[in-house]
């Protein structure tokens, strides 16, 4: 057999269910207090810094990290539960989500001890927001074409160039970015990029917001002009950033956020259809529920395999590929079914508003964090085709 895909039927352990209850109770309180509206996923004004701190106070940020850095040393499956409950409730996670999922683990692995001691506990307390500086005006999926230069100077580097499509850069305290420290070699075009920790809100950095088709200003252009990064902010090997993108990418690809981004429209459709759906609505809903259940079982399976120390790189890419395509199509399928919802359905207006926003959101889902095309390339490599 060329392909040996594995999706073990992993279940969340019993202790996760207690945690789930706690997360649901916490979110219900926040909703009751008016922190956010679970029916309105598009609140662009809601960075919710206080909410972020309260989530941190619960111990739900950096929850898998060592205690000495403020973590809880809990499992990835427990983190999974927190993530999915927040996502389904449309909680405002923007301020902490990137740091918790991605930036923190990179720091844990590559930052010097004094930086870990400084920053990781603040992530865990929900005090700092991270952005990721990968794309540039002329390099997106082709990461290794990045040109923004970090030139060696006394005690550090001087950075010049532009990052783009950088989500949350306008509110971020830090960015983890890749800059060019050397030219690529003939043998290895991936050589010459280095990962850096960048402190935002400093001289030499200009953040220009970019409007999106949703009407939001979530991503930005970030221009560096002789921006100074000290030596101890190098993360990992100089010129060797390409070696560092290994298994942690699997966590990034296969989480609940990769298929639940537009889930709210399904809930609202079920509400609009009511207790006695006609055959068409029932069949449509049944198929969508079967699909989301399957996606979740795949995603939990990958989380479980990662927790067990395995590296299901192909499986994780598959989860993101079919998960993001699914969440992209979901608002359109719900729209099909909503065409026959009774005029009298009390949530009709909510559903229409949500569909409008979800349909506008949909195009980005198969682009951000690795396009469908890149993912299929990774899967094809796993199948032995490249």
């Amino acid at each position, binding site marked *: 057999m060329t392909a040996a895909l594995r999706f073990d039927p992993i279940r969340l352990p019993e202790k996760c269910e207690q945690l789930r209850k706690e997360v649901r109770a916490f979110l219900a309180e926040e909703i009751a207090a008016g922190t956010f509206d679970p029916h309105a996923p598009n609140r662009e004004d809601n960075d919710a810094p206080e909410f972020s701190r309260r989530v941190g106070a619960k111990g739900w940020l950096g929850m898998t990290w060592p205690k000495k850095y403020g973590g809880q040393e809990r499992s990835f499956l427990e983190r999974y539960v927190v993530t999915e409950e927040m996502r389904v409730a449309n909680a405002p996670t923007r301020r902490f989500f990137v740091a918790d999922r991605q930036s923190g683990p990179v720091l844990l692995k590559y930052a010097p001890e004094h930086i870990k001691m400084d920053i990781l506990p603040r992530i865990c307390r929900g005090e700092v927001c991270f952005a990721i500086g990968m794309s540039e005006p002329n390099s997106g999926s082709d990461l290794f074409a990045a040109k923004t230069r970090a030139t060696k100077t006394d005690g550090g580097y001087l950075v010049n160039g532009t990052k783009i499509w950088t989500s949350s850069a306008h509110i971020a305290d830090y960015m983890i970015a890749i800059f060019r420290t050397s030219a690529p070699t003939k043998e290895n075009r991936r050589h010459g990029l280095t990962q850096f920790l960048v402190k935002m809100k400093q001289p030499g950095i200009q953040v220009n917001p970019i409007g999106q088709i949703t009407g939001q200003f979530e991503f930005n252009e970030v221009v560096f002009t002789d921006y100074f990064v000290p030596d101890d902010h190098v993360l990992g090997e100089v010129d060797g950033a390409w070696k560092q993108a290994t298994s942690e990418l699997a966590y990034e690809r296969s989480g609940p956020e990769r298929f639940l981004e537009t889930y709210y429209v399904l809930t609202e459709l079920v509400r609009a259809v009511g207790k006695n759906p006609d055959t068409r609505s029932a069949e449509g809903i049944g198929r969508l529920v079967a699909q989301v259940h399957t996606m979740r079982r795949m995603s939990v399976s990958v989380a479980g395999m990662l927790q067990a120390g395995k590296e299901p790189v192909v499986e994780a890419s*598959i989860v993101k590929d*079919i998960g993001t395509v699914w969440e992209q199509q979901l608002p359109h399928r719900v729209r099909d079914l909503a065409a026959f919802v009774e005029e009298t359905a009390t949530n009709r207006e909510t559903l229409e508003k949500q569909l409008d926003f979800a349909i506008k959101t949909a195009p980005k889902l198969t682009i951000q964090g690795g396009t469908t095309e890149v993912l299929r390339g990774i899967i094809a490599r796993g199948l032995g085709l490249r």
Partner: protein
Amino acid sequence: MAESENIVAETAEKIFADLADAQTINHDKKGAWKAPLWQALTEAGLPLSWVPDDLGGSGASLAEGFSVLNVAGRHAIAVPLAETMLAGWLLTQGKIASPEGEMTIVPASPKDRVTLNADGSLTGRARGVPFAKDAKHFAVLASGKDGISIALVDAAKCRIESGIGLGGDHNDTVTLDKVQPVTTKPAPKGFDQTTLMLMGGVVRSLQIAGALEAMLDISVRYSNERVAFEKKISKFQAVQHNLARLAGENAAALAAATSAADTIVNAKSLDNDAVFLEAAAAKIRCSEAAENGSGIAHQVHGAIGFTIEHILHRYSLRALAWRDDFGSESHWAVELGKLVADRGADELWPLVASR
């Protein structure tokens, strides 16, 4: 499930490799391979995997039996192994001993009903019964005035209108006209036709997942051999992306089917929402994967895959045919949709998250 999970599945794998090689079978127009294969399966105790020793079976666990079915799907086995296993399982629910030989299940669709008459005889008509023509006995689920019963019926006493299904296997209409069963016992409490259809659906889901794995395997191999425009077609990005999507469909089917099987293995009773969601979702998603995946496998193979000489159709057409047994994806989608609507919007996520 690339490597076999247990000794029972390993035994099955070995028998299929030795006696059911797809290439050999495909060229054997007379079906001479069938008898030795069935004999080997019987000697290994596989058809009655789910029947305990005291009822005439080999007493394998539910989990072992499920993994045999996944392996059987990978080999697109054209003998009634899955059907006999399921029939043995049904008879065991009624504490009825299983006879030797091929069996199948009546009814095999949620639409058909068999009635237990006051005189103990059975009446009803069941369409789309897989391998009825090859079976010596039927395991029958019937409803009567005292509730649901399970019966063992001699196939020779029924009228069988022979048919051939999409996959090329027997798919027949069985009519029972006041047929006296060999044995009848009451079904356990809470066991009804929905339970049987859900279990049958999980069996078919595992087979579809297995067939998709085989389709992915032979499609990847073919793309690495076939040359067009002076290079292997596996080097074309369009082909790579199609195969990546086929892997995705295989993955979804495997995850849905093994999750549903695992749910049944660990269920205290089959009469609950968890079993319903998992089994219905598996049948729906695996059937969708059968359509999406077999389409890609054929596209990658081009004209050669459309020939009777090539083995691809053994997997693709069976995967498509299995969609129809024990309730199609449309049937289960309506049932699942009704359940979700009845519980209400705010109970949907708790239901999904409970698994």
